[in-house]
């Protein structure tokens, strides 16, 4: 527990740093001893998991914190063995079915059934239900989500589900209607700054507000990222300097460099070099949408308003088509070629105008 992000994580609903009202509501929810299925959603690094763990602790006491990891094995109808890691306590089980790709339906069906069919031994001292935490629900396949909705109702006596998602847009309406939705918004920059500073104070460090603001801006309102960046800053240079470089993840830097290359020269040869970079990103497992979004952000910095709208339109078009396809590199390259084409024309127009 020594990364700041882990070390200073609030363990109690009353001690959370922001969204305090919501925390109180959650506490009230548990006090009644029972609650419906929950769908906790919000952007990355907003504190969804923190709240879920706090909630569980509220529910079952500190025993929830004694966690262990287990490997569960499922057999698909085609006799393929699928393994998945789960994090368990005595009272709950957490699993990310999206880890097994297209076999997520099997995991959901088997796992929920086995958990739900076994009742708690001592009903008097414990709650009469267990909790299953499913993460990345929005990554689940349609099949898996359909499998989920009936089981949710069927086994409600023995188990409650807490679903975590980044966005509800990819969670089917059927599931959304069966859950109590709890939105955990990302912290504002001010909140991040205050948290950064309080954390630094706990560590016995002095963080200038300007640097904290810079970090907050770089972190995309992702608290975990902000804390990690802050810690990395500290490792690189302490005492802090307002003008010190804010370390970003390598992939982010890499995409930015790529965007600069694209803006610098527009030719087929450049497309070829950009392609090798794209392959590199794909090899590292960076999600496609993220590549697209980061790249677009960086490219837009070089566009004026009129060009911006055109580029964004094309980006949306290609990104949409990428979801339907399988070879993402085609779509990336098509977008890059289109951008080059637009940009070249734009530059030529500008220069010929004078």
């Amino acid at each position, binding site marked *: 527990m020594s990364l700041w992000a882990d070390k200073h994580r609030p363990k109690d609903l009353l001690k959370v740093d922001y969204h305090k009202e919501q925390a109180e509501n959650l506490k009230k929810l548990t006090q009644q001893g029972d609650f419906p299925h929950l769908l906790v959603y919000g952007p990355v690094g907003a504190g969804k*998991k923190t709240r879920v763990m706090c909630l569980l602790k509220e529910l079952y006491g500190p025993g929830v914190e004694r966690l262990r990891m287990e490997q569960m094995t499922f057999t698909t109808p085609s006799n393929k063995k699928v393994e998945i890691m789960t994090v368990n306590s005595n009272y709950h089980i957490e699993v990310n079915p999206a880890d097994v790709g297209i076999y997520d339906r099997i995991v959901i069906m088997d796992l929920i059934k086995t958990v739900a069919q076994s009742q708690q031994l001592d009903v008097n001292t414990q709650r009469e239900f267990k909790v299953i935490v499913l993460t990345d629900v929005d990554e689940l396949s349609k099949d898996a989500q359909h499998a989920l909705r009936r089981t949710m109702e069927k086994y409600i006596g023995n188990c409650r589900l807490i679903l975590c998602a980044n966005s509800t847009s990819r969670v089917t309406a059927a599931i959304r209607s069966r859950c109590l939705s709890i939105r955990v918004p990302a912290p504002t920059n001010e909140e991040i700054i205050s948290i950064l500073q309080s954390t630094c104070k706990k560590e016995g460090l002095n963080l200038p507000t300007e640097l904290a603001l810079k970090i907050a801006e770089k972190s995309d309102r992702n608290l975990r990222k902000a804390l990690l960046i802050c810690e*990395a800053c500290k490792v690189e240079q302490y005492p802090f300097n307002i003008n010190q470089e804010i370390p970003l993840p390598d992939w982010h830097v890499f995409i930015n460099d790529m965007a600069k290359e694209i803006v610098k020269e527009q030719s087929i040869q450049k497309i070829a070099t950009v392609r090798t970079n794209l392959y590199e990103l794909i090899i590292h497992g960076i999600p496609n949408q993220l590549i697209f979004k980061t790249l677009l952000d960086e490219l837009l910095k070089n566009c004026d308003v009129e060009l911006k709208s055109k580029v964004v339109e094309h980006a949306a078009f290609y990104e949409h088509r990428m979801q339907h396809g399988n070879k993402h590199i085609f779509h990336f390259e098509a977008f890059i070629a289109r951008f080059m084409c637009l940009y070249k024309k734009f530059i030529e127009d500008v220069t010929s105008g004078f």
Partner: protein
Amino acid sequence: MDEYEEFDEFEAMYADDLEALRDQDYDEVPARKQLNVAKEKPAESQDLFDDDDFEQVPEVAVSQKSQVSKGGQSQQLFGDEFGACSSQQSRKFQSQKSFEDEFEPLSYEVEKQPKKRTIRALFGDIDDIIEDEIQLPKPKKLKDTGAVEERLEEYAMIEHIIELRRLAKAKSDPLAVFSGSYDLCTENFRDNISYIEPKYTAISIVNWEGVKIYLRFHSEQFQREEMQRFRSDLDSAAIMGEGFKRTMDEAKEILSKECRESNNVEEATKAIEEDKSLLWVDLYKPRKYLELLSDESTNRTLLKWLKLWDKIVFNRRPKVVPKKPQEEGKFKNRFELNLELDESGRPQHKVALLCGPPGLGKTTLAHMVASHAGYKVIEINASDDRSAESFRTSLENATQMTSVLDSEKRPNCLVFDEIDGAPTASIDFLIKYVNGAYVSKSKKGKAQKGSVLKRPIICICNDVYVPALRALRQIAFVVHFPPTKTARLAERLKEISNKERIKTDLGTLMALGEKSSNDIRSCLSFLHFFKFQKNFVTLSDVQKTSIGQKDMQKGLFSVWQDIFEIERPKAKGDLVTLGSRWNKVVSTISAFGDYERVAQGVFENYPTMQIKDSTLNSTCLALEWFCYSDIISTQIATLQNYSLTGYLQFGFVMWNYAFASFQKQKITYPNAGANARSGALKSKALMTEVLRGVRPGTRVFLGGKSVLLDVLPLLSRIVVPTLRPVNLHVFSKQEKDEMGRVVSTMIDYNLNYIQERQQDGTYSFNLDPDINGLVKFPNSRSDSRQLTYFNKQLIAHEIEVEKMRRVEAAKYVDGNRAPTEKTSKERPAPPPSAKIPKKPEKAAPFNFLQKRKKDSSKTGSGSAASSAAGEGSSKMEGLIWYKYKEGHTNAVRKRGHVSDWV
């Protein structure tokens, strides 16, 4: 002769026959030399004999013929010497015959005599009548001298000899009847023709040399009788007698041998004209190595490879031309044949893989070469059962056994035809077998040592890039089959059409060859077809018909070439229109079928093409089509909606429009896509590995991709503190804190440094699991800060210590104050230094250590033990011990006062 060095297998087979032939040859040569010395005349016959050095087969016939011609032409000139030589020759022939001993001396005697006699005196001038008479053991005498009386004496002698011989023949030879009748016949001749004026009624005529000859008149009755006699003798053999018989026998033997050996085309044609069912492809199959149409260097390479097996198969040193030393510096071509043998005397490549488009004669070549090198060909093709089990059986049978029934007992050579269609399991088995990794099980169930492959295997395929062949390609000697030259093909076709009496010309056949892309098989089928329709083929026939233009599958590279290159119009008037390009690309692509692979190849190759597209508009358009075809193929794959397949081919047309040029383009095989896919899988596996190690308490909060995107990239920086490369206990407090933080973070994420040996022999500490490989990018700027080797070592050590400490702390809590001594016994091999710092903290049995704790306990340092605490330890009654750890020392030389320690 070296051009024919490959023939020696053939020689081995027919050694006996050849030897006999050679004997004759050698006997004859001196004789011929004699002739040569005597006069310069027989140049032509000499030529013939030069050739005979190679063509031993027709030798006997030729030599005899040449002799005959000599006898015919130059009897007058030769004089004694010829007599001598011909007597020698005839003696030789005789010695071959099975004369009974008793007659032999006599005949010798006689044969030496004829020097003094003239043949004309014996038989009259009969040269032009029966030339073959030279075969008779009667030598010819050329000089036209000597008295009649003398001759008459000799007649008696000769008649005596002939009679004796006839008797001898009658005993041993059924043909003796003929010789008998022949003798009669000659006797009659003798009476009929004469140079000198005869006693009987005669007519005088002048022969071509202007010499007067007298021919006898016979009565009509005599004439009738004579005719009758001739007729009764049935056939002409009677005239020529036993000499003819022997010649005939030899000729028959030669012919049958030729049939067996090379199956003379005419011979075969005759035989097969009755059997119309045979395809021309089989009919006009090359029967000799020299008749092969395929590229000579290819043939040669394969043959050379096969000859390399001679060492192990025939136990004979293969003829290896020693390599010139200057070649060694050169880049070694992959397709170049490695002439060296491995330790078991086999060539480096155990398998040859012939690949090329259909109809070039790959199978023919394999068969031809194998039988040429003296092997018995065992073919396994697509029509055979090729499941792994039956494959194994046939493979073992072919390589480990020889046919008992086969009279020639030739070793087997396995030919796997059409191997690209074989199941992967079979090919894997083949590879295993070839590598000797396969372990066959005997009946007792004991695993035997894998048998060593001792027979050559030739595999034949059309498409060498079939995934199943990938592994085979690595170990095999790959021979790419270049297309046959159109001219050479047309020549052969012309030859065949002449034989089949089809009227055509070379231009037509060239066009045919081109149209079928030099596919011999389809050309022959085309001709065959036309033979039945009409007896002539014209250029328009070739152009009009769709025969010969089959649904050809081109190789991957030629498909890509079709997309990237615009074919120049053949005639000047022709224009390459968009329409013609469209048709060409669509037909090529739809014939090939594997759209995905072709598209990937186009995608990965187009940036290297020289395309003039400064606005990038057409490139954009082309890339649109890549997206489109990707979406379509995804739809096909996920929904099994194959009706969409038809739309895939049009993308290739667009790519042709956008990227094609007249230039020759260099195309490479697309690997990047596959590499990226496998790389992504690898990093995903690494990611799972990392997540598995993370402590559950931390793991709970790490959902989805955030580990990869946020935590690990920054973590890889956080665990690299700025530390001086000094020993732990010289660290400042700040540095110690830093160290403690890094250690606990790394434990949380289950990271550690492990020592690895580099290629250059040095050691380095690397992160394990290697998250750097996961998050670092090529142009990364965060590499600037690196821990030194020493610091990494220190951290690794500290992590171990800290882990132990945690385990023991957990035990301490759980196990009701378990004494530290006990735990130290339970843990099998803890680093000894690890226990030292615990003592002051937990047990603290010694006073002096407590004192020491004041200044050094906070470090929690284990490594301090090795040098500094070591001094103290000597006083500690054996509770602390040393263990020499190779390559590991934390010793730092530093001045210190005793008062610091005590």
